[in-house]
């Protein structure tokens, strides 16, 4: 199979009503590993992920996959900070991405049941998705994103509103997906989480990549004073 990665961003800039949200960004995402975007609130983590995924069109520069855009889109999935539940049963939510791709009802159902077992959602299959608890909802969103076995998974603060146990579960699923070959790109404000799962760190400040590199080196000794201050827990402006 020809891979959609590497992804190359060249001077990619996202604007809304003339205001620069993120960019210009130059970044290359290699074929494997876990990249974590960190930075203070408003530094452009979400915008960077949305831009890479193609949810928003770049105003300047380019976001290039190794495949034509339409094909590359089929190989990606995105988990939103506030999970979006279709007003359907959990089963129908899980089967939905497969149904969009023309998988038969029975085939989609079998896959949905299989992934529900893996994500501990079997008991909720018949329940309406909007009535799930926060933790269950995020598990559903992650399972629904992974059911198509994407090559790249974007996750925007997937544990933002979860308690410890639910966070541990989600992190377990994320690292399992990364271990089985899904390229994970995640935004988080939780430094502990970044340390636990990142292979590569992108530190954003004011919509630009201020520093990036291997996680071990970054956390051991960031090379910019702003990153060092951020890791210390100072307020970085």
């Amino acid at each position, binding site marked *: 199979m020809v891979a959609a990665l590497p992804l190359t961003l060249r001077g990619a800039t996202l604007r809304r009503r003339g205001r620069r949200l993120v960019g210009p960004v130059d970044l290359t995402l290699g074929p494997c590993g876990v990249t974590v975007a960190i930075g203070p609130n408003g530094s452009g983590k979400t915008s960077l992920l949305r831009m890479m995924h193609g949810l928003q069109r770049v105003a300047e520069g380019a976001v290039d996959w190794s495949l034509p855009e339409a094909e590359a889109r*089929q190989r990606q*999935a*995105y988990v*939103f900070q506030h999970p979006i539940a279709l007003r359907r049963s959990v089963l129908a939510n899980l089967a939905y991405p497969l149904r969009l791709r023309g998988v038969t009802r029975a085939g989609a159902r079998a896959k949905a049941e299989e992934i529900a077992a893996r994500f501990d959602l079997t008991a909720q299959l018949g329940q309406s998705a909007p009535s799930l608890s926060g933790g269950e909802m995020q598990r559903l969103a992650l399972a629904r994103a992974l059911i198509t076995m994407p090559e790249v998974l974007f996750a925007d603060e997937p544990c933002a509103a979860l308690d410890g146990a639910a966070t541990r579960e989600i992190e377990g699923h994320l690292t399992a997906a990364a271990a089985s070959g899904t390229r994970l790109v995640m935004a988080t404000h939780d430094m502990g989480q970044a340390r636990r799962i990142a292979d590569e760190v992108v530190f954003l400040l004011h919509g630009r990549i201020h520093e990036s590199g291997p996680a071990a080196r970054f956390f051991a000794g960031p090379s910019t004073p702003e990153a060092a201050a951020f890791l210390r827990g100072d307020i970085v402006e």
Partner: protein
Amino acid sequence: MGDLLAGLGEALRLIVTLDAELIEITLRSLRVTLTALVIACVIGLPLGGWLAVRRFRLRRAVIATLNALIGLPPVVVGLVVYLLLSRSGPFGVLNLLFTPTAMIIAQVVIITPLVASIAHQAMRDLWSEYHDLLISMNATRGQRILTLLVDGRRALLTAALAGFGRAIGEVGAIMIVGGNIDGATRVLTTAIALETGRGQFALAVGLGLILIGLALVVSWASHWVLRTERQGTW
């Protein structure tokens, strides 16, 4: 007050004795209205969904026009449909004037904007909720509209019921294009108008009560079928 009470008695008598004429015009009312409603929904619901997911230059103008058309005076619609279907009109050869089909055509024109507008408002809200997810999942435009129609079905029921209510109670247009012909195009509303004009108030009130009862039964039945207000918040 006496006329109302007499009307109540008359309504009961008509129902209990299964009055043949009553049943005939009631069934015709239902047939004309439900046919018009099905056609209006087939046009209006996807149109509402399309307006919700599609962004184009004249979108606001189209929506504003649609909302204005809700207020289209039925008598004027009846007049225009009459002129189009009359012998000398462009569709005169079809011989549709003074038939139930002509009444259906007029009702479709009257209720489609209402159905489409309410459907659009409901699906616009749902679309703002689903937008990012469906874009992310690469759903085609058709798939997006279908998803909104399926998941917004309870709100769409409201749109359909509003259309039904407007059509079943409509008298101006169907009187003009149908002609209120006994045994052919007489329906509940035109019969009420006729009986009132003739001074038969008891019969008119009786028919009126049956009309209101019909609207209630249809609304209850459809809510029951779609199980609204029973699970969750939608």
